[in-house]
């Protein structure tokens, strides 16, 4: 039985593995730089912001939620670090930024769960608010996160090491991303929390009647999503020595694209992190490979759109999905 399960999990991501392999082969044959360790490291580093957030977006979407505000939240959290570093010190500012992310997630979660606003609308509103606040707090300026006075070298160096430090040749943010994916896989597949995510996304009412603390789980998934955005912001800020209210443009869409590419259903109740991981890798290989070819931005956008469609279409064909499954998500949110 185990074997069958394992192979079916493998089957689920098989199409993605093939797609990734194909992209790698194409990109590698187009440029012999693609497979150099240096480039692969860059590729991985570039995928960390999306990757870190995507772990928790996957969980959230499996539970039937959705968070479009992650990129704005990340920008806001970065700005919080920038704005508070001088008055409070760098590390307290980082902690407050993490708390800010969690708070934004909590507000999203409470609005979705207790007020009952549709997740898309809730987080769309939050997208606007968080981005606006990021501009307000930064006055629209990019704030250097740099030891200007020279009095706190240790703290700032440590902060910079967050993103620059390496272990076994890979930068820390990549390890963090891998760690989060591994942790997420464990949680989703083996823990009661993961089980609850699948159950709530699969059938909220049944979960409630099975005495699961549905609302608490839901809120927590949003909090984690906000927290992951803050975490991504911390590493981004550390990497750039600066906090930009414009940071992470379009990341929310990239995250959703990666998660959906990975086979997580927008309807909730289905999905897996391995798929998301592959989805993230596919998107960043595609982008990186096209960059090495100096592909124009427009063409990059078009190719990404097509790949998304293709991947989801393959999934549909593989599932032999002949039902109107695509509308079920809206059905479900209707029942809640």
């Amino acid at each position: 039985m185990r074997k069958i399960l394992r192979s079916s999990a493998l089957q689920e991501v098989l199409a993605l593995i093939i797609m990734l392999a194909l992209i790698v082969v194409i990109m590698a044959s187009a440029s012999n730089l693609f497979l150099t360790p240096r480039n692969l490291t860059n590729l991985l580093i570039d995928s960390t912001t999306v990757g870190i957030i995507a772990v928790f977006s996957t969980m959230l979407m499996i539970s039937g939620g959705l968070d479009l505000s992650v990129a704005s939240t990340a920008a806001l959290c970065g700005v919080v670090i920038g704005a508070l570093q001088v008055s409070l010190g760098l590390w307290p500012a980082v902690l407050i930024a993490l708390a800010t992310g969690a708070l934004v997630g909590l507000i999203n979660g409470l609005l979705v769960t207790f007020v009952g606003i549709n997740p898309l609308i809730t987080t769309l509103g939050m997208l606007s608010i968080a981005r606006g606040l990021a501009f307000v707090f930064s006055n629209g300026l990019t704030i250097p996160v740099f030891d200007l006075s020279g009095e706190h070298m240790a703290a700032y160096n440590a902060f910079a090491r967050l993103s620059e430090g390496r272990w076994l040749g890979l930068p820390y943010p990549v390890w963090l991303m891998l760690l989060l994916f591994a942790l997420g896989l464990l949680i989703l597949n083996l823990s009661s929390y993961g089980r609850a995510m699948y159950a709530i996304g699969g059938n909220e009412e049944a979960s409630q009647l099975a005495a699961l603390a549905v609302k608490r789980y839901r809120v927590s998934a949003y909090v984690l999503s906000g927290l992951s955005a803050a975490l991504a912001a911390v590493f981004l800020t550390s990497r750039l020595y600066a906090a930009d209210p414009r940071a992470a443009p379009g990341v929310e869409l990239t995250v959703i694209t990666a998660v959906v590419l990975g086979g997580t259903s927008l309807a909730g109740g289905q999905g897996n992190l391995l798929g998301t991981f592959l989805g993230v890798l596919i998107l960043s290989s595609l982008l990186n490979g096209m960059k090495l070819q100096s592909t124009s931005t427009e063409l990059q956008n078009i190719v990404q759109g097509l790949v998304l469609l293709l991947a989801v279409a393959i999934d549909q064909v593989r599932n032999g999905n002949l039902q109107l499954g695509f509308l079920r998500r809206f059905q479900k949110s209707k029942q809640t």
Partner: protein
Amino acid sequence: MNALLLEMRGIHKAFYGVKVLEDVPLTLYRGEVLALLGENGAGKSTLIKILNGDYQLDSGQIFLEGQAVYFKEPRDAEASGIKMIYQELHYAPDLSVAENLFIGNLPRISGPLGRFFIDWKKMRQEAKHALALLNVEIDPDTPMRDLTVVERQIVEIIKAIYADAKLLVMDEPTAALTPPEVEMLFDTVRRLREKGVAIIYISHRLDEIFQIAQRVTVLRDGRHVASKPMSEVSPASLVEMMVGREIEARQVELAEQTAGAKVALEVRQLGKTGVFEDISFKVHEGEIVSIFGLLGSGQISLTRSIFGAERSDRGSIFVNGQEQRIRKPQDGKRAGIGFVPIDRKVRGLVLGMSVRKNLTLSNWQNLSRLSFFLPQLERQHSQTWIEALGIRMAGGMDVPVRFLSGGNQQKVVLARWLEANVKVLILNEPTWGVDVGARSDIYDQLEMLAKKGLAILVVSSDIQEVLSISHRVLTLYKGRLTAEFDHSEASQDKVLNAAAGGAL
């Protein structure tokens, strides 16, 4: 014998390689009611969904009035005069009753633009007329979502019988109806039959079959067992054909209630404005108590409130003599109450999850360390319950619960609460849509559980079931308890009378 209307020959159908129908024939004559019988999962619904164009057959042929037909979509079947009442309700909540009655076939205005625009006046008139068929007083302009479940079901039925159909298929239409409503439905069916309409009638209630059908076709495991006139069969022989073995008519052997049994559940003056009021009763350890009431009397809301799925406004609940503050299901569970909801598919199970995961959904605490499941332990416990309750499924405990038959699904929900080690078990309509065999299994389980000392509270609208399985019967009318009967003194007349508000 009337003229042959429908002939299905050699129907085969498989889902994902699993054969669901094998070489099944079906014949139907004008003006007859054909009962289609079989256990849960025998393939009844699949067969008629193929007839209706909802599913496509793998091989076989369908002849309607001698012509070979092939329906790609339900609307094709409808165009040929085939109408369905589905097992699950199908309505658009935000449209009015009138629109729901005619949806897919809205009356259009005459004239060149007639194709596009609706004739509201005609629609309303016809809707009134149609609703009068079953003596229903519903304003046709009411949005569907404002109706009660029963009203919605009735609208569904009317929708099908009002259409000018040659062939009407009814898949368990009476599950939610009260006896007078069933009677009215049967009247209508007889009238339609006299007009020459042919009807395929699916039900797990054998008494209904004998009331209404002329012929019966029995399926077992996707194969045709027999087609016979009703005059040649008896309930016992039907059951044997369906199950493949003999099952004696069930009479639960109730254990003697010992006088000193402890009170497991006590409800005092529970009230919820506008729904139920002043409800007080006790359930002892080892006792099965049924609440019987016409649908909409508040019994579902009452049990939901006891478990915490809804909030009551007043009153108190005691479990094992301890007052409990129950405001959400977690509280109910903590207090030792288990709850089997009314519609297992919609409310009871996460259909896409495996049997095992559904089984342990409420019980991860015992099966995990630091919130992480201990896979061995989980499987072991699941296996224990699967064996104890005789849950049958192809493919083992990792099969999605969606693929189980209704009765087995019901057992999964039951097992979940037994694993949670509850003291009080509340069951809502435990045998809705469950076949005779599985029904008998479920009764066995209840009996066994009661003997083990569990206090069991059952809500059922099946009077036979209530009379046979309960130590005591409480009747509910318009949200108030009207009477209480011991097993010995309960009779169909008395209970029905009390539940209709006529008693006391």
